[in-house]
């Protein structure tokens, strides 16, 4: 604490001198963004970075869908196709969803708990600025001889060790940097929430977004080192002659999967818990009614986080496990649906007998609740081991995780952006464009992902560049939905550019009629420095 106060002290003084002209002292040009330790600037950087990565990862998805538009090989060769699926996954997970949530945490956590900034501002700067390098390394590997990583974002050994190309070294290095960035971000969130809450902001008064992020941050610190361990073992197996995952040297390729999914399953909750927080902020606002079951929401989030450590092998039912282990992981996985169900029921109960309006953030939130629940229900089906043998590694799984990640995590991020954007810019965004963005996305995303359930059940494996003829009709539709969803995001881009140019009607400090919380008590746009004197929460 002492450290962080020292670090930001000079800026404080300046801010006081120009209390009414906040913009005057902000360094301008590239230096402002390179050297910034301001949580709002860093939040903006994270969010734009995530959006650019979303567009790049999306472009790769377009290549995938173009190749799969009809049977036969048309556009790319299978080796490049595998690079596209791999890098698309890595970019979307580590480059789009996670940094977007970190960006939201940067913007919102200090404002929600009445803190002047994040606790460790210089580390905050560093944890953002190592990210572009990491992704530059990853993306540049695509231009190497032999191409980039092509073993799937799950990089199962020995495909990623003995049988991979030289770009594996770059892949490992970039994942290390992404991990370091995530851990630093998580430490910052935890330290901020533990130490910098305003007087009276007790634990059980914290907004749910803060709670869910706090729990997410602990998950990150617990599992990112496991991922770092996994990639390091891949590196030494490939380049330094170790045999962690090579049976011929006494290792075990299935051990890789245990290690990876011990990281990977908490990772999927890392990508959804902050989404739960966002929806729990938005629904009460537009229902004009307090969140139903606040305490149970907190406990449900914590239960999901704890359970996430004991379900990892449900990704591996076909690897050959003892029946007892399969049973354990089946039952543990099914259990997760209980706290998750509690959350959905609480949101519906919050709406019940509220006084609802459907502004754009609420539209996305409602879409989230419906579509995320569909993804959750297919997740419950996947938990049933004997049936999972049929679903595993088919498009049914692809449909499932895109419902929870695209219409779940990404829709929640979009909801969050629409909800807080007027607070950030001081202007209402272009509502017409926003509604276009919502409806186009909603329709196209379902044309894109819903038929994947069908082709998966009918037997189409995932990660194949070409497919049997009976899958052709649906794949055509899936591709068309994909192109439409991709184009819809350009509407979002246009809207964001307009918003950043500060076009639009000025908004009040509360912005939305039913909005409650500290961030809605400061002026819009939020001043460069907020809560230099802590507010008192009653």
């Amino acid at each position: 604490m002492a450290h962080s106060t020292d670090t930001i002290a000079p800026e404080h003084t300046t801010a006081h001198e120009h209390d009414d002209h906040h913009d005057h002292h902000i360094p301008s040009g590239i230096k402002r963004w390179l050297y910034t330790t301001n949580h709002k600037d860093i939040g903006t950087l994270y969010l734009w970075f995530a959006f650019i990565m979303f567009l790049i990862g999306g472009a790769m998805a377009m290549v995938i869908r173009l190749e799969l538009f009809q049977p036969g090989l048309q556009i790319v060769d299978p080796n490049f196709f595998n690079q596209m699926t791999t890098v698309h996954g890595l970019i979307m997970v580590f480059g789009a969803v996670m940094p977007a949530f970190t960006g939201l945490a940067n913007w919102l956590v200090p404002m929600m708990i009445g803190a002047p900034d994040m606790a460790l501002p210089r580390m905050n700067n560093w944890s953002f600025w190592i990210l572009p390098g990491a992704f530059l390394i990853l993306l540049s590997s695509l231009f190497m001889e032999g191409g980039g990583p092509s073993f799937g974002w799950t990089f199962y050994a020995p495909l990623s060790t003995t049988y991979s190309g030289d770009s594996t070294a770059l892949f490992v290095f970039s994942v290390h940097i992404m991990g370091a960035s995530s851990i630093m971000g998580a430490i910052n969130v935890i330290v901020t929430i533990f130490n910098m809450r305003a007087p009276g902001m007790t634990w059980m008064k914290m907004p749910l977004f803060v709670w869910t992020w706090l729990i997410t941050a602990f998950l990150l610190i617990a599992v990112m080192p496991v991922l770092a361990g996994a990639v390091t073992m891949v590196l030494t197996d490939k380049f330094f002659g170790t045999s962690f995952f090579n049976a011929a040297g006494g290792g075990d390729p299935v051990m890789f999967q245990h290690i990876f999914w011990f990281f990977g399953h908490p990772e999927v909750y890392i990508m959804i818990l902050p989404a739960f927080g966002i929806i729990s902020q938005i629904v009460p606002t537009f229902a004009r009614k307090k969140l139903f079951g606040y305490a149970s929401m907190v406990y449900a989030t914590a239960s999901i986080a704890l359970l996430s450590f004991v379900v990892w092998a449900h990704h591996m039912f076909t690897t050959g496990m003892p029946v007892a282990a399969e049973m354990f992981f089946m039952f543990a996985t099914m259990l997760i649906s209980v706290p998750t169900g509690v959350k959905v029921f609480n949101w519906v109960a919050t709406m019940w007998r509220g006084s609802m309006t459907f502004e754009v953030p609420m539209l996305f939130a409602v879409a989230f609740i419906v579509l995320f629940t569909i993804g959750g229900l297919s997740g419950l089906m996947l938990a049933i081991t004997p049936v999972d043998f049929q679903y595993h590694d088919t498009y049914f799984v692809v449909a499932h995780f895109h419902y929870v990640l695209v219409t779940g995590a990404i829709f929640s991020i979009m909801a969050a952006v629409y909800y807080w954007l007027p607070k950030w810019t001081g202007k209402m965004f272009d509502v017409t464009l926003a509604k276009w963005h919502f409806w186009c996305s909603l329709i196209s995303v379902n044309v894109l992902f819903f038929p994947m359930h069908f082709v998966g059940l009918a037997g189409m494996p995932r990660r194949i560049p070409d497919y049997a003829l009976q899958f052709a009709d649906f794949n055509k539709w899936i591709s068309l939905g994909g192109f439409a969803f991709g184009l819809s995001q350009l509407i979002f881009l246009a809207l964001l550019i307009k918003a950043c140019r500060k076009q639009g009607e000025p908004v009040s400090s509360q912005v939305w009629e039913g909005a409650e919380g500290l961030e809605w008590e400061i002026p819009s746009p939020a001043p460069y420095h907020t809560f230099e004197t802590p507010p008192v929460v009653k």
Partner: protein
Amino acid sequence: MKRLTNVLSIVLGTLPTLVFSFIAQAAESGGKELSDLNLRPGVTEISGQVYDLHMLMFFICVAIAVVVFGVMFVSMYLHRKSRGVKPAHFHENVKVEIAWTVVPFLILVFMAVPAARTLIAMEDTSEPDMTVLVTGSQWKWHYKYMDSDVEYYSLLATQQEQINNRFSKTENYLLEVDRPLVIPTGQKVRFLITSEDVIHSWWVPDFAVKKDANPGFINEAWTKVDEPGVYRGQCAELCGKDHGFMPVVVIAKEPAEFNAWMSAQEEAQRQAQEEEQRLLAMNMSMEELMSEGKRVYNAACAACHMPSGEGLPGVFPALKGSAMVLEDRLAHIDIVINGKAGTAMQAFGKMLSLKEIAAVVTYERNAWGNNTGDLVQPKDVNAVATGE
């Protein structure tokens, strides 16, 4: 607001069209065969149980969705500000909250019991009538009948021209192999599944059998097929470049027919071995070697080294102009027979006959402008293989 409504109505207007044409499309394919939309009940008792479990789970999920979304949509209709509704003030209710924790739990128990029963039956590989060793490698399957000497590789049979859209695609495009696995109906067949290189996954949807092939470890699975027929599946675990091109085809035959087939295979295998011995005393002509070599090369080598011999730079080395191919004849024969440890280069010694190896090595040393003029005979290959 008016403009907004217009925009909305335009977008919503296109929605029914989209949905309608989508359903029409689905119905059309559904008309052909329901299995284009849903899991197949399959042809074994287990696959039938799995299908029933799937449908049970599906209907429970649909019911939950209907109730939850139903309540939500009713609320979204009734409790709107535009209807002049004033918000209520409740924000917790212990009884309700306990109820919606306990009820889902009970539903889960109801699901878990039949699931556990089926799972135990699926994993019971004891007392099989026969055993087949299934070995995956990049990108083909190998089948070995443990109770006889019969063993062979099973490769994709779809022509490259179909994949490259030069020929029109036939009915079983990408789901056809040169030599399918043959098993008897009505008998418990146990599969021992393993891999030579990366992880593959052996999957036949109609048997509800999907098991990973892990290098260095052996997995078990079993099936008992009721109906004779041809059953098709695919590799289900990403295994590299041609993961999408290693189908599984199983033919189930009546036991009598199966036994006749098995005897024919044993006889054919014996004859092939005799032929191999006879070839050792003979010399084959350049033309003969080159035409046979081209066939073998395209079947076994072209997936990595490419039909042009140029390989994939950075992934698979080129043979065209390669120092080993142009100069070191013994090393060339050796690497084809024994492979190269720690790389994707497989040992073809057990996959190809002496004649085929001789032909393919000759082909590689004379195709694509390599023009060494070298002739490699089956006896030369035998000499390297036996270490002479």
